[in-house]
């Protein structure tokens, strides 16, 4: 999978490294801003209220 991505990135290796790092950074930002806050809702230790 990662080898396939690497082969399909354009340019010489320094450029590919930069693009790959940008991809990773974008995914981390997406996780922290969207996916994790959504997943957090089901965590047990965030349930601190008595049901109203």
């Amino acid at each position, binding site marked *: *999978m*990662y080898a396939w991505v690497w082969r399909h990135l354009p340019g010489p290796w320094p450029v590919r490294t930069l693009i790959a790092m940008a991809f990773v950074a974008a995914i*981390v930002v997406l*996780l*922290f801003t969207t996916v*994790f806050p959504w*997943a*957090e*809702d089901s*965590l*047990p*230790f*965030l*349930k*601190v*209220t*008595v*049901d*109203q």
Partner: protein
Amino acid sequence: MIRTAVRGTGELLITAGLVVLLFVAYQLVWTNYEAHKATDSVASDLRDSWDRPNPSGAGPAAARGPKKVDFGKGFAFLHIPRLGKNWTIPVVEGVDLPDLAKGVGHYPKTAQPGAIGNFAVAGHRATNGEPFAYLDKVRKGDLVVAETRTEWFTYVIDRTKIVSPTSTWVLDPVPGKPSAKPVQALLTLTTCNPRWASYQRLIVFGHLQETRAKADGPPTVLLRPTRSA
């Protein structure tokens, strides 16, 4: 072909593991960082708004705190000396997750601080700022102060109790007596129990001991916090 499939599966599993680790880091570090930032901003906004002259129409009735507060907006401070010498946190309206990420949350249908009835507040015990991480250290006789724009309300803790998550009776104006007419100003704090689970709730009950005008300075307990058991 098989080798490619195995390698691909392995890479996916390692990626999934990294995402889970990242989620743990997010919960344990990032949510606390974000919550502390949000809490500081709510606290300074509230102090600033108190420093400004009272909005028009605010008379003695408004002294007990605003009647209608926007969800997620701070309207009071809670001080619990047992949890630390200068332990203080803004109380925001509402107990949904976005509200609780900014401080501790006031159950919307319960009494205002110092008012007759039950002033009920929920707070996180693990992650997201975890204000009530050590709420289990609070015990009978401890003093808890609710600070509003105009007053200090000092509550004394009567008891703590572990209840089921559906025990809404703890929010009653007179906890456990749904039809009773409240005559006393009470305090109820709720959080999860055990700290990293959700199958119980830790409840702390108290009643109002002293009301003090802001102009008279903070109550003694905030000046010289008691360390005794």
